[in-house]
């Protein structure tokens, strides 16, 4: 596995389990550099002062909090150090709760926890006990200089530390205009249920879903890097293309025809739209 990004310990009660923290989710976005179109020079960002218009060196830069429009409180690195939480290198378990008592909205980013040699036994104990009780641990964690709330859950033999959002970061949904469900006709509900049933699968298989945009972009980039001619947006000879299209058209006309026959025989309505003069809701 890759490098641990942090090593410390899980503490609960009198037990300490030395662990390392590993990334569990990596983002897969392609990243691009910005270049000058004409000479491919990299685009540089310069920190420029809005008052004198001149570039500012890092040692003249401080952070300011805008407490009122145009009014700032200035803070230095020392100021931040004073309030930084102690870098305890620990996952301090505060309480245990059943997993489904936590709204999934609170979970932000998962990390794997791996025990060091000395911690293996206690790690296994905590994992099994959590799994058996169907509970997760809620803990306070300090990573670098930031404090987080996190859940420790057993997933597939590993303990996973999942960073959570603070309560004040969750936006309430009560500002949205949502329909109530009082008068839903049973018939429509039945249809909705049927639709769900027919589209249901036994297992969620994330491998089925691929990021097509990324894949195509990557294919294009790789081809260009190798200097290959790209699959041009249909630059095939006009003749063969037209010939193929003619066949497609003939087939499509044939289908339209049979559809028309079916519709006039009363087997199907051409469109599924309902027209209403008044709002239903």
């Amino acid at each position, binding site marked *: 596995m890759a490098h641990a990004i942090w090593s410390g310990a899980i503490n609960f009660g009198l037990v300490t389990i030395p662990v390392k923290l590993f990334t569990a989710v990596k983002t897969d976005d392609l990243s691009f550099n910005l270049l000058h179109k004409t000479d491919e020079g990299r685009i540089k960002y310069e920190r420029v002062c809005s008052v004198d218009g001149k570039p500012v060196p890092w040692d003249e830069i401080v952070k300011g909090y805008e407490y009122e429009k145009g009014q700032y409180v200035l803070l230095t690195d020392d100021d931040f150090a004073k309030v930084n939480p102690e870098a305890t290198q620990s996952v301090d378990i505060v309480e245990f709760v059943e997993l489904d008592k936590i709204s999934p909205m609170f979970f932000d980013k998962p990390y794997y926890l791996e025990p060091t040699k000395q911690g293996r036994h206690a790690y296994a104990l905590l994992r099994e006990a959590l799994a058996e009780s169907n509970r997760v641990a809620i803990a306070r964690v300090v990573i670098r200089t930031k404090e987080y709330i996190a859940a420790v859950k057993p997933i597939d033999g590993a303990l996973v530390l999942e960073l959570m959002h603070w309560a004040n970061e969750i936006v309430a949904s009560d500002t949205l205009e949502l329909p109530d469900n009082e008068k839903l006709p049973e018939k429509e509900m039945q249809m909705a249920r049927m639709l769900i049933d027919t589209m249901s699968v036994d297992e969620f298989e994330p491998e089925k879903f691929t990021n097509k945009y990324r894949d195509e972009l990557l294919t294009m980039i790789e081809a260009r890097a190798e200097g290959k001619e790209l699959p041009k*947006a*249909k630059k095939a*000879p*006009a*003749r063969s*293309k*037209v*010939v193929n*299209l*003619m066949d*497609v*058209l*003939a087939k*499509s*006309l044939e*289908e*339209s*025809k049979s*559809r*028309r026959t079916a*519709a006039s025989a009363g087997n199907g*309505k*051409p*469109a*599924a*739209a*309902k*027209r*209403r*003069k*008044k*709002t239903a809701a």
Partner: protein
Amino acid sequence: MSSKERSTLSVGARTLSLSNLDKVLWPRDGYTKGDLIAYFRSVAPPAIAHLKDRPLTVQRYPNGIDGETFFEKQMPRGMPEWVERVTVPTPGGSRSEVTFPLCNDEPSLVYFANLAAIVLHVWTSCVPALDEPEFVLFDLDPGEKCTLKTLATVTLSIRDLLAEIGLKPLVKTTGGFGLHVVVPLAAGYSYETAKVFAEIVARHAAAGLGDLATLQRTIAKRPQTAVYIDYVQVGLGKTIVAPYSVRARDGAPVSTPLHWAEVEAFARRRSGVAPADEFAKLTIRTTPARVAREGDLWGPKSWKKQRLEGPSAKANRLWRERG
């Protein structure tokens, strides 16, 4: 009337409450929301003929053409109950269905104008057969340095190809820089058919036009002097700027049906003239008189619903060998 004042207007059987009629929507022309409403009323019968029963998406400019704009991709909140509407299932969308307004009468048209709905986009099909296109569409979009002459030449070439296989297309300005060419269709064709047919014509036309036309979808790769022939703008949920819709550009240009003779005259113009120079003459000021004089050039007399079987067979015979 002060700009914040509301006023009432009787249109047909309805009484509408209108607001801010003095609000300037075209700041460099001084045209107000009141002017927009007056324009739509003056062209109401032909405009409504082309809006009727088509799901409508309006593009609103509450603070004028320089301000923020938004597409109303469903019926606006608070729409009066007498404005007709249609609910369309949206498989794969974030909601299971969406209700679109239908602009089926003059009061509805005035209602939308009062919302500063400058641009009226309609589906390419109409209720109840929303899965059948009403026409084959060629959206002819001139590049930045393309002349009116080139645009007209390309447009006429498409007309002539269509005529060669027995079809009678119609033409209108988009209200922007381009032209729309449509072949009205008989009932029962699928979007797929309309699209494939359009592609065949577009490819054949482009092959014969050399540098004058392009099928390149990426804007940056199109030659700026050429006309982009866009043949994919017909489909379920796809929209087209309706005839007599206004555009949010200086001068308040209008999407106006044309005589083919007018396009022929464009093709004879000297090369210095840009499409915008000519189309800028068709505005909310000039179109009402033109319509009164010429009638609706896309009206029932010229809107002949056509079948594709014969023309397709003919195209197959004529164009397959020539390539």
